[in-house]
């Protein structure tokens, strides 16, 4: 429901609107905030300028779907009408790696459906795949016949057919939608999307940035152009919203803004999501917003398969890595069970092998870090349509990352509502780790004494 105050704030009527929203913002901010539950060091500051970020007429801050978009709707006699089209899409995981995937409305993941608790929604689903499909609304209260499990709740949507789902939203929270017909294949090749429902009474804590993404895994074998749905565990690409690092959008915020990140997991594995620089609260998920006393303070939160998590924190200036903590999920394709060359002296043999195979290079003797140097310089050809396992460069050198990795960039001077990448972080003087010696025998570090 749209309140007069929210309406005015949306219209943006000069200082009157600014004053109004400041009041409403402060009022809302105070309702959900128990001072003695705050983590150490965090001070509630209301020094932020009034937010003139464009909010929806119904008052919510629209989510930012990383690398994605939100599905527009049409109002029809008080019902929000959405139209999803299930179809094959040409998708780029990162420059240099494209594939034929399945998605909705031209993208994988599909567009985010965003509505407000209490809305009545009508969703048209047209099937342009060559096999039947359905859509399941994960976590929603709705009539059994709208739940979308093909054969159980409804007849399947055959190719070329359009079905309609209609129900009233009886909850708020972070949800998703995905097929429930030939589910394993259709999800394996990319069919999923976010379904965000905002609380009808507005946010208890004013959110300044609201990000959302889905975790997924793909078996795109090196040199191929279509994911393989028959792979259950040995995946090659790990994605946020179907993108891998370095193509994942950075999350940006202004220092002091309250940021929420909504994470959904439709992959085959749980993911310990780790955010550097802050301690965040786990504030909700499919079940909507948790009461304050149920919030957990974490730096890493495991998102299980089929689960959603909302995390919130107040932004601290800097460049903060945000990634799944499973180290092999932050790499692009690398072979499983590859010969272990760590610590192996190949002197002499490398030369011999190179006389047989001129392109051969001994790798991995002292670790794999040097690999990115070679691929950066472009002088090691890999299979076509395949990304090197380590990518990315920032102001101090190679990041050696891939897959489920991105950066949260918080700047003092980033304008609210400005989502552009602010570039390298200018570290304040004296706050960068610096070199004191290149002599390995420098100093007298104590070593463990074995008796």
């Amino acid at each position, binding site marked *: 429901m749209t309140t007069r105050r929210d309406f005015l704030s949306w219209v943006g009527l000069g200082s009157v609107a600014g004053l109004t929203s400041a009041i409403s913002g402060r009022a809302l901010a105070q309702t959900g905030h128990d001072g003695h539950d705050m983590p150490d060091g965090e001070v509630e500051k209301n020094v932020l300028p009034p937010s003139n970020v464009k909010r929806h007429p119904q008052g919510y801050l629209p989510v930012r779907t990383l690398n994605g978009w939100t599905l527009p709707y049409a109002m029809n006699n008080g019902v929000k009408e959405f139209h999803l089209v299930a179809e094959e899409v040409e998708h780029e995981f990162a420059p240099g790696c494209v594939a034929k995937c399945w998605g909705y409305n031209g993208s994988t993941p599909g567009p985010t459906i965003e509505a407000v608790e209490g809305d009545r929604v009508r969703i048209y689903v047209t099937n342009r795949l060559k096999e039947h499909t359905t859509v399941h609304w994960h976590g929603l209260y709705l009539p059994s016949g709208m739940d979308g499990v093909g054969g159980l709740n409804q007849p399947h949507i055959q190719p070329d057919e359009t079905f309609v789902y209609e129900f009233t939203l009886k909850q708020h929270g972070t949800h998703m939608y995905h097929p429930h017909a030939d589910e394993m294949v259709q999800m394996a090749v990319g069919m999923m999307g976010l379904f965000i429902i905002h609380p009808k009474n507005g946010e208890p804590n004013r959110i300044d940035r609201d990000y959302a993404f889905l975790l997924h895994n793909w078996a795109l074998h*090196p*040199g191929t152009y279509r994911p393989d749905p028959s792979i259950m565990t040995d995946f090659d690409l790990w994605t946020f919203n179907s993108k891998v690092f370095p193509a994942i959008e950075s999350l940006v915020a202004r220092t002091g803004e309250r940021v929420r990140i909504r994470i959904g997991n439709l992959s085959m594995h749980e993911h310990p999501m780790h955010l550097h620089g802050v301690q965040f609260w786990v504030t909700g998920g499919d079940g909507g917003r948790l009461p304050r006393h149920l919030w957990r303070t974490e730096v890493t939160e495991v998102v299980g398969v089929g689960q959603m998590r909302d995390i919130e924190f107040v932004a601290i200036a800097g460049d903060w890595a945000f990634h799944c903590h499973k180290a092999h999920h932050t790499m692009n*394709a*690398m*072979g499983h069970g*590859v*010969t*272990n*060359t*760590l*610590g*192996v*002296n*190949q*002197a*002499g*043999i*490398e*030369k*011999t*092998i*190179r*006389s*047989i*195979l*001129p*392109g*051969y*290079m*001994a*790798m*991995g*003797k002292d670790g*794999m870090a040097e*690999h990115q140097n*070679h*691929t950066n*310089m472009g*002088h*090691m*050809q*890999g*299979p076509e349509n*395949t990304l*090197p*396992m380590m990518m990315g460069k920032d102001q101090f050198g190679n990041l050696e990352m891939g897959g489920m990795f991105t950066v949260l960039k918080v700047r003092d001077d980033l304008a609210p509502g400005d989502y552009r990448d602010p570039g390298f972080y200018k570290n304040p003087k004296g706050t960068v780790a610096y070199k004191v010696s290149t002599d390995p025998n420098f100093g007298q570090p104590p070593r463990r004494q074995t008796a």
Partner: protein
Amino acid sequence: MTLPRYLPITMLGGALLTGCASVPDDPGRANVSTLLQERGHTVAAPDDAEAVQTLLTELLDKPLRLEDAVRLAWINNPRLKAEYARLGFAAAEVFDAGRLGNPSLSARMLVSDAVGSANEIGFGLAHSFTNLLLRPARSRFAEGEFERVQQLVGAQILQLTAEVEAAHYRLAGAWQIVSLREAVLKSAQAAGDLAQRLFDAGNINHLERALEQAATSQARLDLLQAERDVKKLRGDLNRLMGLRATEDRWKIAAGLPTLLADEEALPDLLRLADTSRLDLAAARKQVSLLADALGVTRRYRYLGAIDVGVETSREGDGSRSVGPTVSLELPIFNQGQGRVARAKAELEQAEADLQSLEIEISNAVRLAATELAAAKSRAGHYRDSLIPLRETIVARKQERVNYMLVGPFELLLAKQQEYEAYLGYLEAVRDYWLARVELAREVGAPLTRSTQNGSATIDAEALIQPPDGTEHLHTEDAPMTNRDQMPVSDIHHGDHP
């Protein structure tokens, strides 16, 4: 004694003595050379021992090509000397056949028991008239037989030539195989050494190391077998070139000739075989000789031994008598039917043999042509299909090694499989040329297309040579530099015979 009395004797003697040349020194060798020349071989074998020695030295001091090996065999293989000796037999027959039979002299002294009688002394000189009559025919037969023997000798020389060529190709092929087996071993050895390094670093276990080293061991066994094959085939060629074990210092030219664009057509080959095969010509000659002999036998079957001569005697009473003599075999009990039947049977047998030979040759030529086509097809398939695929596999595996998607062992294995494909190819090329030798042997003449491609060769070393590495790389042995091109390191060849 007055001269006129001895005139008949001296005249007869003179007539007999005319045309009495000795057997030529080079009985028909020149003719054999001509026969071979007509069939495209230039047999310029020097006759004196010194020239032979010079030629021998010259041929042994440079890499032996196919034609060198053949030349060496022609001047050096004692089998050829044995063949030429057969010519001597036939030449002797010609000589004998052309000679008139020797007359026979008879003398008698009869002692009379009558008082006052002197001893009867008589002399007679007789000569076979039959011999004289049949001399032209006999000469004809002997010369015809001489020709036939020359043809047979020529056929044997071509046979030897085919054996030498086959031995040369086998050896050339075997040497290529050794080169490839060395390359396979090098690759397997690298994998085995790498496995040892991994084991030393504690990264693989005994089992994994043993598995890699077993493959290396097998590669070495394959090489040992290939080297043994080379030694054996060297021995074969050495023997065929008439050299002793101590004279085995020659080296064979490397490589096999490239495949020809197209082959001769079967009808042409059959025609060529019909006109070229010397043993076929000899068999035909045999039939015509025996037909001629049958005709002569038939015509003269009533002719027995007829002797004519002169006789003189001094009677017991001192008078002298002189006069011609004749003795005539009467064909009463035997009109030579046996002789005729024998001649007829011999002719029939020879005709059957000729037909049999013609059929055999016809089928053999076709079979050889079929074998040739099959070998060519195999070689072509290796060259156009399997080898490019194996090369692609190696390149794509290298891409995966670059991105750490697979390990180096898989890459080395792929390279070995590439070498195996080259090996199959070279074997097929060798089989192709062996098939051509066989075809030429069956046709009885060298196939002129064989030298069409000139000196273009397929060489294992060229196949093994990897493409230039175009990347700027650093190695474990040298830190990264700004060199643009990594030099291709030396490929070590084994001793090249």
